């Protein structure tokens, strides 16, 4: 599934800056993720964790450095520039055409599901396969049905999103993202908009996917139990920088930094 030279990181942030006006959201951020790794990003709101996912989905663009070769500010995916492209031996900000190729490797599940309300469940999962991956209709449908079975919604393929509960919609959204065969799956607070009794269905589906595939996952969540079960690594962010990172057992039981301790105390007290 991944690039054969798989000892290189699948994602690498090289001194990435992201500003919104005067606000510096990511500050010379460096980190990398190995293929198949599951990384949970935690931290207070505004710490930049969702921005990282949005940059990887190309919903936002990095704030470029003057001279990327010297100053960085570049995201790499599978060893190749992602936020930038090579042009005449230099790195320049990627254009839309380049991004269209590049973002095929990445899929995202949103907090608010964002299913297409004008399409039934089946079309939500098949349409992009047909139009952007150029799969045949039959192939797309059998893939969709397989995935809808995986998320436990085989009996709802004719329903419209408005006829489904939030948990069901989110499971369809997971199937929609997986149908594109991404190498990297971004999960942005996927249970935050759900009623409490629906959270476990969605997390259960994600646990299955984590157990049965080798897809790389970046997870922003407040569900610490889920983060502990699924992830190989937890990264604590504050003010656009990594405060601390490590395996979930260590991070949750004996965090070293005061900011991590405060944050976890606040989250776990909920």
């Amino acid at each position, binding site marked *: 599934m991944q690039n054969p030279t798989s000892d290189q990181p699948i994602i690498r942030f090289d001194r990435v800056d992201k500003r919104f006006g005067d606000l510096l959201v990511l500050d010379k951020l460096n980190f990398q993720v190995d293929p198949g790794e599951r990384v949970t990003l935690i931290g207070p709101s505004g710490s930049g964790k969702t921005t990282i996912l949005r940059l990887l*989905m*190309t*919903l936002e663009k990095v704030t470029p450095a003057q001279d990327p070769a010297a100053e960085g500010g570049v995201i790499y995916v599978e060893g190749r520039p992602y936020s930038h492209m090579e042009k005449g031996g230099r790195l320049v900000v990627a254009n839309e055409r380049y991004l*269209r190729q590049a*973002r*095929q490797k*990445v*899929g*995202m599940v*949103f907090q*608010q599901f*964002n*299913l*297409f*309300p*004008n*399409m*039934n469940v089946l079309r939500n999962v098949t*349409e*992009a396969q047909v*139009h*952007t991956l150029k799969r045949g209709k039959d192939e797309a449908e059998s893939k969709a049905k397989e995935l809808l079975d995986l998320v436990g919604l085989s009996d709802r393929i004719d329903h*419209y*999103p*408005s*006829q489904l509960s939030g948990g069901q919609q989110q499971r369809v959204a997971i199937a*929609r*993202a997986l149908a*594109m065969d991404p190498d990297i799956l971004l999960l942005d607070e996927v249970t935050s908009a759900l009623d409490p009794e629906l959270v476990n269905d969605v997390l259960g589906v994600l646990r299955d996917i984590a157990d049965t595939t080798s897809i790389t996952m970046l997870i922003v969540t407040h569900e610490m139990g889920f983060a502990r079960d699924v992830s190989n690594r937890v990264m604590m962010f504050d003010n656009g920088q990594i405060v601390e990172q490590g395996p979930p057992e260590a991070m949750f039981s004996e965090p070293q930094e005061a900011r991590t301790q405060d944050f976890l105390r606040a989250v776990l007290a909920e």
Partner: protein
Amino acid sequence: MDFQAVIDSLPRYAEPLLVTITVTVASAALALLVAFALGLMTSSKHLAVRTPARVFVEFIRGSSVVVQLFWFAFAMPVILGIQFDYLILAGIIALGLNYGAYSSEVVRGAIAAVPKGQLEASLAVNFTPFQRLRLVVLPQAWPEMIPSLSSFAIMLLKASALVSLIGVFDITGIARIIGGANGGANQLPHLALILVVYFVLAWLIWTGMRALERKAKRGVGINTRLPKTRAVAPPEEGANAAGGVL
């Protein structure tokens, strides 16, 4: 007032009625095309696309439709040497452009109202901008446009009477002529008659557009036959017995 004369003159309305309907339907079709073209252009993120459309919309909206009608009918043939074989075409073009310019704001507004999350999801599944428009944005914006477009369609029907000013014999034109005969003795019944005709045509448009709206809403999974949520508890069984309105 001579009722027999009024009744005898009814067959003379057949052709003008067809003219009114033709002008309304043809200029509505043109207006719809113009509305989508201008609405999409004014929604563009490119200034070079947005600006000319904006200027055109504001110019058309800011000038008199009657003057535009005269312009297409009488001035353009002189200035540009373009002569319409039928004046009715001038009427259709003037009304179509005018109502198209107004309706383009409806199109633009409905496109702008599609939630941002829909655009982000479209990007996440890697739709091209055109696919995003065709598969996601327009199907969701369309049901939102229909009520306003219905209003414009009815205004257009009523505005079609203006073509009588450039010598096209629609029902208003013929009512003025027949009613004006004999020193205007039958003016009142003829004008009353066409008021009713306009009302019936407007009602037909409403009915058609309501059906279209229901169909469009079903297409985005909204069931219009049932209330979305029950805002108040259903009344007790006994409530109606004590003098319910039904």
